[in-house]
């Protein structure tokens, strides 16, 4: 393990053992629908409340990831997970039955990248043999906490994003598999002064740009060296801004730059600027990117989780939205 600038390079890589994605109805109807491990056809997952539904979804993702790796919960040294709900109840409650040592995270939509970064560091540093990284969000539970009741008749502006009903779980381990975690950059907070919580892409775009810029500096690489640079979830507004910022530096991002918020839903699904929520980047990673890395269709990927770290209280107090972006480098086809 070496550190240069803000970036940690895992010279002895940490490996992705298995992953699983669980999604809701709309996510099942989207372009990645068939690649989820399980779809909850009514978004309720057999539960009475949306919070319980999200917790159930997180349980299912953990169960799928463990059974795909054919390991028992007892073999997991530590679980790292988070979600959007107050006090991260979905993840904590999902851990009630699993009996795994658990560290709760809050990174908003960057949670999966934050979990991978920490999970890999714990293994690389010798503190763990196997870690479980988890991130979930549910449209209905997020809506009632952050915005309006579900039956309230309001319109969303076109820059708004749709919270994904989705959960991703990734198992990391010390022994070699097909996918390696080889570097990670923990992001700094950037707040460009956006106060409109219906425009989170704009609030987070600068963080994504800065983290990528710092990573390219630390690693001595450039955007063209990667098969895929994936931010999540900036959606159309933030994705365009990151492109503009890099173009202004004289090194424009190519076709290899994508955003999770634009991959989860199809254009006809009426989600305005695109998807958001911890579950969005987690599910795109687990349903699409990691399998492509395992199959060798992708070799090098920069997975950059972006989070808008505001709360309803800070928004009401007129505070602008601090953004964050954590980067994890994944290499496949080993």
């Amino acid at each position, binding site marked *: 393990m070496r550190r240069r600038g803000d970036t940690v390079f895992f010279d002895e890589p940490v490996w992705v053992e298995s992953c699983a994605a669980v999604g809701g*109805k709309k996510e099942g109807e989207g372009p990645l629908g068939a690649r989820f491990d399980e779809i909850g056809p009514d978004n309720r997952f057999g539960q009475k409340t949306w919070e319980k539904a999200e917790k159930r979804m997180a349980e299912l993702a953990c169960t799928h990831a463990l059974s795909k790796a054919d390991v028992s919960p007892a073999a997991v040294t530590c679980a790292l997970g988070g979600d959007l709900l107050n006090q991260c109840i979905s993840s904590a409650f999902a851990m009630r039955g699993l009996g795994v040592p658990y560290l709760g995270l809050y990174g908003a939509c960057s949670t999966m990248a934050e979990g991978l970064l920490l999970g890999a560091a714990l293994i690389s540093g010798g503190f763990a043999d196997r870690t479980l990284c988890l991130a979930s969000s549910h*449209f*209905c539970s997020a*809506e009632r906490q952050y915005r309006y*009741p*579900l*039956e309230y008749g309001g319109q969303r502006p076109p820059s708004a994003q749709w919270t994904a009903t989705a959960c991703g779980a990734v198992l990391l381990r010390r022994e070699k598999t097909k996918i390696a975690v080889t570097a990670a950059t923990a992001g700094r907070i950037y707040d460009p002064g956006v106060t409109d919580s*219906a425009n989170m892409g704009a609030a987070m775009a600068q963080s994504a740009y800065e983290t990528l810029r710092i990573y390219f500096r630390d690693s001595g690489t450039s955007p063209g060296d990667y098969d895929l640079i994936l931010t999540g979830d900036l959606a159309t507004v933030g994705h365009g801004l990151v492109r503009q910022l890099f173009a202004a530096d004289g090194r424009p991002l190519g076709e290899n730059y994508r955003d999770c918020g634009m991959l989860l839903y199809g254009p006809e699904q009426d989600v305005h600027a695109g998807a958001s929520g911890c579950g969005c980047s987690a599910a795109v990673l687990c349903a699409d990117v990691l399998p492509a890395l395992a199959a060798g269709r992708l070799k090098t990927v920069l997975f950059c989780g972006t989070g808008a770290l505001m709360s309803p209280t800070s928004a009401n107090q007129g505070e602008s939205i601090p953004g964050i972006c954590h980067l994890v480098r994944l290499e496949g086809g080993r």
Partner: protein
Amino acid sequence: MIYLKAFLVGGLICALSQILIDRTRLTPARILSAYVVLGVALTGLGLWEPVVRFAGCGATVPLLGFGYAMAQGVRSAVAESGLLGAFTGGLTAAAGGVAAAVFFSLLAAVFFSAGDRS
């Protein structure tokens, strides 16, 4: 004829509000609050009465009309019972609407729950 006038004036108020929502970042709660206060103020200044006479429900059904009803209630209550009327008049005039909204909503909450939206 009054139906057409109600349609046109009511529609115009809603269209102007939509422009306000689209062009500014005013939340619905703020716009509705502003309309009720504006309704009271316009009635107090004698400006809303003519619109009501012209457009009927086109002027009373939008939330401006809620303010109009309250202002009218206060005016007659003050004329009748002085200072006390300032406190009883507005809410008395709005009582039907408020009670209906609270009671029907409670019933709705007992028998129905919010659905999924995706």
